[in-house]
């Protein structure tokens, strides 16, 4: 996994709340058996609408999504994170993320930056005044920034320390856990014999 320290890229306002994972990537796109190529399914139902934000050339190459509250609710599909990443998004900013989505993001290297609802609104306002403008998500200082001078936005975002550390170090989950192999082995030795097995 690549290290994530800071990222600056075109901000994309997604002015909807409760964007569930069926919206991010509908089930019909989940049939692939690889980890790539999910970008064409991203927000598929909305992409037919010429007014949908991703169809606006101004936001081509967008990499920082600014979304309404309760982003990523619904199904646990990690394809939602891959679809966002395959499309080119590196960070999502919202005032509230669904737990599974937040977990999936951290593990795949997509930054889920939780900010106050007012900050989302200010970023939307700023993007309205500066369409195609770039937003910086600085993981080291836990801040989001957009613009300079009057109307500029700068605020902190929340992310738990552990996820932040892993993203900063670009650490792979399984490798970390396998360094505790002895602990797992001794736990296994103490499990009651009546626990069910499938084999």
């Amino acid at each position: 996994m690549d290290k994530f320290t800071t990222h600056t890229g075109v901000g994309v306002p997604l002015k909807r709340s409760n964007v569930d994972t069926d919206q991010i990537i509908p089930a019909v796109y989940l049939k692939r058996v690889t980890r790539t190529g999910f970008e064409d399914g991203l927000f598929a139902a909305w992409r037919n609408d010429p007014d949908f934000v991703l169809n606006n050339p101004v936001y081509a190459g967008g990499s920082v999504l600014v979304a309404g509250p309760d982003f990523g609710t619904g199904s646990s599909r990690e394809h939602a994170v891959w679809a966002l990443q395959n499309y080119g998004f590196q960070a999502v900013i919202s005032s509230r993320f669904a737990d599974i989505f937040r977990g999936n993001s951290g593990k795949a290297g997509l930054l889920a930056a939780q900010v106050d609802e007012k900050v989302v609104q200010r970023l939307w306002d700023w993007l309205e005044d500066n369409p195609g403008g770039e937003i910086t998500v600085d993981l080291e200082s836990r801040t989001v920034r957009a613009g300079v001078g009057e109307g500029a936005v700068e605020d902190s975002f929340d992310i738990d320390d552990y996820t932040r550390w892993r993203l900063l170090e670009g650490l792979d989950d399984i490798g970390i856990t396998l360094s505790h192999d002895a602990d797992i082995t001794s736990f296994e030795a103490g499990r009651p014999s009546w626990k069910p097995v499938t084999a």
Partner: protein
Amino acid sequence: MGKTLSEKVWDEHVVRSAPGEPDLLFIDLHLLHEVTSPQAFDGLRLANRSVRRPDLTLATEDHNVPTLDWDKPIADPVSRTQVETLRKNCADFGVRLHPLGDVEQGIVHVVGPQLGLTQPGMTIVCGDSHTSTHGAFGAIAFGIGTSEVEHVLATQTLTQARPKTMAVTVNGSLPDGVTAKDLVLTLITHTGTGGGQGYIVEYRGQAIEELSMEGRMTVCNMSIEWGAKAGLIAPDQTTFDYIEGKPEAPRGADWDAAVAHWKTLRTDDDAVFDKEIELDASTMTPFVTWGTNPGQGAPLGATVPSPDDFDEPNDKVATEKALQYMGLEAGTPLREVKVDTVFVGSCTNGRIEDLRLAASILEGRTVAADTRLLVVPGSVRVRLQAEAEGLDKVFIASGAEWRGAGCSMCLGMNPDQLAPGERSASTSNRNFEGRQGKGGRTHLVSVPVAAATAVRGTLSSPADLPALAG
């Protein structure tokens, strides 16, 4: 201070904990299906890793298997690729698989309990958000993403931050004809889809204790629909009776040891929950959704709400969008909403008790002329049991389609889909836009409401049906 049930189960599974870090949790049972596992196995191969505990892992095919012609090769090439990939992965890594055509095949959350693999006090995960179903047995069970699937395959553990605890106490008894599904739909409308975020929820109280295991599974199944990490119910005699004698249940001295332990799995009297909610079951009625998330529901006797009924601007907008998508007008009595397709099935309501209930209402009645009723058993065992009891004949005589086991129209990955604009009454758990097919409109309902709706052709409860002669 005492511990809550979920804290007890959690603590029994901590392999390693360190300050400021999530716990490393041992996983007792890892369930797999064809949709969320291929990339995980892909990852193992890339890193040259193996499955640590194939003996704690079980796979089945459910999400996109056909429910017609299931003995023939799968027609859809992509579905076939996923299923074949699962078969190859299970063979390569030594994982037990119940494929299409096998007597133990079915929806992963129906299969675990019916094999007796789902037991109290376990940690159970699956790359599927309705894994919470297994919480009905007093297990901590939750859905995980594909990277986590890979992590569990490789290590049989997960790193997890300890969730907060919540108690949902449902006092009183459910009135006749009101089911576990109505209970949980009422709860979700009460809390909203985000109300459970960050919590493991314990459902308790008289109404919960009075539920069958099937009903408890229905409630726990929908925990995720109001955002909860997991939902669970303390095991009791109902639980033990259900498990006893199942193929993978402990036997003899093991059974006694297991039950002795399971009896300790109760929230201590002096334990404190981070949050508590109380509901009264005795006032509940048949409940249906009118919108595009499971929190947009109302009693069947109500009318379609108007955006003006809501104070929050977000709710107003969401209601307006939902009504537009659903093609509904505010003020219309829900009982007058005409339904094209009724779906009885899914991991929420596709177990034998659900099919018995549906058949008891459909017996001697016929499905409305321009309504289609699809009955899809949750597993092959459920199908065979239903056929042994003659339920299939009741369904077919009423004009319903009797299908093979799988997720089917719950998510429309197989050919069982709604057409654009088509309206369904569905016993499943999600009414998101397009969930059952692009442009499809879903009303979530209980089994009795589904059956009565199929007969009348509009959203109905059995009380709306004319009594049968004789």
